[in-house]
């Protein structure tokens, strides 16, 4: 049963299995385990990023192509929900319509970009997505009538998942309100999507993707059209990124260029995939959890260190929370060198004691 749900892709490491169980249970009961607005936001962000990063891993880890426009699809999903909810008014219909348009646009864009660039060389994909992604980000800030420009869009969601809706007395000190329903809605959707991605990568189709990653020439020689498979991987990855974007907008009830389109998110996603372990969906899950927690709580720590070391000139600017990306970049480069299989790969490689 479990084997079927996980598409026969068992963790294959006791520690990894333990981590994953902890992760799923922790996220499932997060609102009750760590009550509070900030904790709940962190939990929701983890859930959303797991989907986003896993969708990126579909490309980077499984197919071996790099996209720098992944946040574009994330942003399209988020803007789809935001724009539809603003123009058509809050409601499930507008959510569905916004998501539908966003998915159609994402898939079309991914298809066109993939077909154009992958036809020549997989490396072109990285360069062209970088160009298209940055052009799209500036387009989104320019079209301020539609997207709200730099300010973004704040909108309302259907009543049942908005904070004002209460359906019972507080349980274990946690208010039973629309936010809780929204969290579990996102959690359920994300779980379904992660399982769907697991299914995809462990299907015959996923095998072909990995074959292309390992030896493109041989895969083509066996009779798999490499371009078709790579383009399909790009479209699928865009689809899931778009869904993740929709969930983000639904949770935040806001979307702007910095929350979903910025280059920083792209860098975060790259880093999470590399740290978690390229080529495993589980790596995305574990990497995203560690990263988001570190991002939200380690930056506070950095701020404390920064204050205490504030008297030393030079040290202060290096340790300030604004320079967070510097440390991430170093970590990123070092992990590509010394840690190429990431956390999950390392855990799986460790031989287990036989009983």
């Amino acid at each position, binding site marked *: 049963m479990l084997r079927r749900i996980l598409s026969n892709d068992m963790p294959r490491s006791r520690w990894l299995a333990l981590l994953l169980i902890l992760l799923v249970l922790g996220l499932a009961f997060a609102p009750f385990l760590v009550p509070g607005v900030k904790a709940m936001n962190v939990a929701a962000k983890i859930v959303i990023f797991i989907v986003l990063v896993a969708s990126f891993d579909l490309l980077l880890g499984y197919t071996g192509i790099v996209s720098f426009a992944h946040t574009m699809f994330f942003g399209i999903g988020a803007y789809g929900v935001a724009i539809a909810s603003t123009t058509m008014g809050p409601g499930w219909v507008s959510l569905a319509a916004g998501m539908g348009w966003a998915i159609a646009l994402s898939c079309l864009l991914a298809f066109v970009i993939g077909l154009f660039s992958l036809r020549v060389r997989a490396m072109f994909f990285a*360069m062209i997505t970088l160009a298209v992604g940055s052009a799209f980000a500036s387009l989104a800030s320019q079209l301020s009538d539609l997207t709200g420009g730099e300010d973004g869009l704040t909108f309302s969601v259907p009543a049942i998942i908005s904070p004002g809706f209460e359906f019972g007395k507080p349980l274990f000190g946690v208010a039973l309100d629309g936010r809780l329903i929204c969290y579990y809605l996102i959690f359920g959707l994300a779980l379904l999507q992660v399982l769907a991605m697991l299914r995809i990568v462990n299907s015959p189709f996923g095998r072909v993707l990995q074959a292309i990653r390992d030896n493109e020439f041989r895969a083509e020689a066996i009779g798999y059209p490499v371009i078709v498979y790579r383009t399909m991987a790009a479209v699928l990855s865009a689809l899931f990124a778009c869904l993740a974007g929709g969930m983000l907008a639904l949770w935040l009830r806001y979307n702007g260029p910095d929350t979903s389109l910025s280059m920083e998110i792209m860098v975060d996603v790259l880093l999470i995939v590399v740290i978690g372990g390229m080529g495993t969906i589980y790596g995305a899950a574990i990497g995203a959890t560690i990263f988001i927690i570190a991002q939200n709580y380690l930056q506070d720590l950095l701020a404390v260190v920064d204050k205490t070391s504030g008297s030393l000139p030079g040290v202060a600017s290096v340790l300030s929370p604004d320079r967070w990306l510097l440390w991430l970049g170093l970590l990123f480069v070092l992990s590509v060198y010394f840690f190429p299989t990431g956390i999950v790969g390392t855990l799986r490689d460790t031989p287990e004691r036989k009983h």
Partner: protein
Amino acid sequence: MTETEIQSPTSPRARFVRPIEFDMRPMLLIPAIALLALPLVGSPSTWLTLTLAGLAMGMIIFITASGLTLVFGLMDVLNFGHGLFIAFGAYVAGTVLAPLVAWTSSAELWRNLVALGCAMVAAMVAAAALGAAFERLIVRPVYGNHLKQILITMGGGIIGEELIKIIWGPTQIPLPLPEALRGAISFGDASLSRYRILAVCIGFVVFAALAWTLNRTKVGLLVRAGVQDREMVEALGYRIGRLFVGVFVAGSALAGLGGVMWGLFQQNLIPQMGLQVNVLIFIVIIIGGLGSTTGALTGALLVGLVVNYVGFLFPALTQFSSIGLLVAVLLWRPQGIYPVVGR
């Protein structure tokens, strides 16, 4: 490298050897696009202004792109951190120009040019040093692995951008043009800013120097041979690794020079400028055909012209104009307009 290529001299690879007669068609695209834009723009004087501005911008892009395309052609390394050298060069130039304010604000052209020359030399030296360090620390361990190259050089670029923020601060820094280079010269109704004339001159000097080095010197011969067939050059006893480091460093220096030109063109410096220019450069070298210097020049001029025309005619579409051009070119020649490398 497959065995068949080594076995038979008439391998598919022979297709990629540069044809004897020079292919003029991509070059003719430049006047063709300019002429096509004439009726759309309407007034000839505006058209002339836009064309000259576009060519100047193209020259600046070419200066920065030439190093990247050679590095790729020679060693199959795609450097996503190339923008770092651009930003670094520009910031160093800003630092050098700041104390020379008496010279830059003087109305005499020669004083301006001397100050600017100092800044450019400093920027090139600094960017070259950074390039050497970057090659050693970031690129060397990942030769031959495209995926890791992309990730690592991108990571290196991000670290560099943060270091720039630490050294020079995260906010925008103004980089005013020297006094005598401000303003414009008018020909009848058309006007051309003085700085752009200088940019075109420097661009031609760089292109001439590159063309001379590549076509008339032994080093250039080796570089060109290495671009076409690296293993053969190595088999003949030349250390292509050293040659590559040289090209990488020279390319970084050119990027530094390009950064100065770009910074003065924009008249301000932001830490993110490297990535912004990088996007444009990638488009240019894909259009030109990865590894081709002539292609990079043609591509840069095409992009400069198209961006300027579209920016005037349909301002909202500026961001996508270069991408549109790229798509059109790839439909025509999927390997770029001057395909060199058969990889």
